[in-house]
């Protein structure tokens, strides 16, 4: 057994022992998920003006109709499952041990454990590149690609393309809520462009894909150019033209607002001078450019600080997931009974 295999074996054994200890402390399986199951029923009814309508049998609107006469073929039933907290499940079982509305969810429990494993697998890269990290990374890439494809088909192609070209077909096949019946034949143009883009996959016809690509780049450049020109260039010039002596407000407000505007104007001018390369950066120009560098450095520092804050927040949420949803070490949202949750950790609320 080489050193790397030994390290990972020890890590897994240690992890298994710690999980077993945690299980003993909790008194059973932790990291479990529960759902609230609701039975739904829709019934087809006839309205006074002769139209047919599907009504929710459990909705108060259904009281306006006699649903008992509806044949079985005009009824649609299904169940929905919404996430429930362990405390809701425990309370429901305590009230009625035979209840079936709140249930243990095996699939969601497996989801929590798989998510915990992948989180740790990604973290393991900080120690060293390893097969677990590679598996987790590949799964993320694969799942994301598949998800984008599915979302792209049902949210873009179906309503925005097929639904425009042949709305009646899409209405009966996929989107009953689509009430447009007008054919927009102009949408055949993007359909053709889309097919031309797919020609990129053809060894001989790949050049065909360049034409729609050129069109998209041209349109996109135009849209982006206008957006930046208006919001980031012209508007920013206007926003920089500010009064150096603010007269609104009173007392210290005048002083601080004036100082802020002064720093803004000096900062803008100094940074512009720094990027002005037609003159050699010597003398007055050099000193102003140097001031511009200071402003830029402070800006980069602020950006770095914000980035650090963002990254720490991301780490915090993953650790919260591990400690709360998986290991049940903390319970900040009161999801579990007090004798299970937070049994290890006292709360340290310095000032709330």
């Amino acid at each position, binding site marked *: 057994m080489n050193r790397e295999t030994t390290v990972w074996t020890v890590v897994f054994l240690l992890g298994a022992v710690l999980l077993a200890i945690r299980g003993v402390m909790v008194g059973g399986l932790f990291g479990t998920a529960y759902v609230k199951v609701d039975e739904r029923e829709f019934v087809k009814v006839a309205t006074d003006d002769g139209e047919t309508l599907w009504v929710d049998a459990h909705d108060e609107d259904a009281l306006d109709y006699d649903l008992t006469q509806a044949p079985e073929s005009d009824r649609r039933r299904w169940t929905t499952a*919404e996430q429930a907290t362990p405390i809701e499940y425990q309370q429901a079982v305590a009230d009625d041990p035979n209840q079936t509305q709140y249930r243990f969810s095996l699939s969601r429990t497996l989801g929590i454990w798989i998510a915990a494993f992948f989180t740790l697998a990604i973290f393991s890269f*900080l*120690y060293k590149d390893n097969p677990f990290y590679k598996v987790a990374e590949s799964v993320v890439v694969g799942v994301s690609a598949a*998800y*984008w494809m599915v*979302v*792209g088909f049902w*949210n*873009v192609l179906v*309503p*925005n393309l097929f*639904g425009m070209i042949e709305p009646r077909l899409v209405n009966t096949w996929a*989107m009953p*809520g*689509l*009430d*447009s019946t007008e054919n927009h034949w102009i949408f055949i143009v993007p359909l053709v462009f889309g097919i031309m883009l797919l020609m990129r996959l053809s060894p001989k016809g790949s050049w065909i894909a360049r034409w729609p690509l050129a069109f998209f780049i041209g349109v996109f450049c135009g*849209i*982006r150019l206008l*957006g*930046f020109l*208006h*919001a*980031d260039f012209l*508007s920013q010039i*206007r*926003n920089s033209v500010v009064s150096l002596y603010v007269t609104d407000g009173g007392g210290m407000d005048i002083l601080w607002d004036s100082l802020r505007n002064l720093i803004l104007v000096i900062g803008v001018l100094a940074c512009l001078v720094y990027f002005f390369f037609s003159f050699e950066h010597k003398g007055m120009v050099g000193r102003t450019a140097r001031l511009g560098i200071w402003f830029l450095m402070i800006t980069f520092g*602020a*950006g770095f*600080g*914000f*980035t*650090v*804050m*963002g*990254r*720490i*927040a*991301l*780490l*915090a*949420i993953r*650790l*919260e997931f591990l*400690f709360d949803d998986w290991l049940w*070490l*903390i*319970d*900040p*949202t*009161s999801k579990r009974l007090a004798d299970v949750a937070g049994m*290890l*950790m*006292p*709360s*340290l*609320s*310095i*000032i*709330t």
Partner: protein
Amino acid sequence: MYEFFKNLDRRWVFLLMLLAVAVPILLEAKFPEKATGLATAVFTEVENLEAGAPVLLAFDFDPASEGELGPMATAFVRHCCEKKLRMYFLTLWPVGPRMVEDAVARVIKADFPELKYGDDWVNLGYKSGYEGVIKVIVTDLKQLYTTDHFGTSIGNIPMMEHIQSVQDFDLVINVSAGYAGTKEWVQYASTPFPNIRIVAGCTGVQAPLLYPYIPSQLPGLLGAIKGAAEYEKLVLDKYGANHPVRDADGNPVLDEDGNPVIPGKYLEGIRRMGPQMVAHILMIMLIIVGNVIYFVERSREGR
């Protein structure tokens, strides 16, 4: 000591950072929050709206930034519910609908069950096209949104009756993790149409890029988890006691001082500032140590 720090394996730094974040989470350490001007500006924009005013909530983020932006989304939805505003959710990110559903389940379904879908809130779902979507819906929303997220025709949703475009909303609230997000909403909505007012919450990485838009193009901005914590504090100060934790009999649970206990879901931003504080102190110390090593090394080399 110098040699030790100079040759320190970076994995020890990773471990220190892990502990700096993990320990405050386990101890549930919290620190006081005080709202700054930008958070107050966002709060005031929402607060000034009349009950029933239409508000567009664009949740342009995904699970990768949920830790930073989830608390903001929760606080925004709660504030809108408390103000009895009509909420229109949409997203320009493919995974965004799930983020909308999470916020709806956490706030509306849990604490405001009296709000009815179609009358008080609607989920318009995801549309692809990034800024192209914004560019269209600022003048004609129904050209792109023919159905809601669940496939119901827009014509059958009562609260959509008076909405023709984004210009009909009294406020746009954008929670943004990147492209397409706040920058695009400013570029294609609030700049060409100054009657569209936008406030936003964004990730830390984005915040410095958005500051130049304040205040004329973007009246208020919540930057990263700090902004979320400040906004949470403002919402809790005004509406905190409205929806306390309740026991099995439905009575409010009181803390040691006799105050109602606030549900943890409304304190996520404030709670996550605990690990931030400790991790930032560690970062500052590491930067100081790194600089000391640099200057000592330079002086030893006689430069």
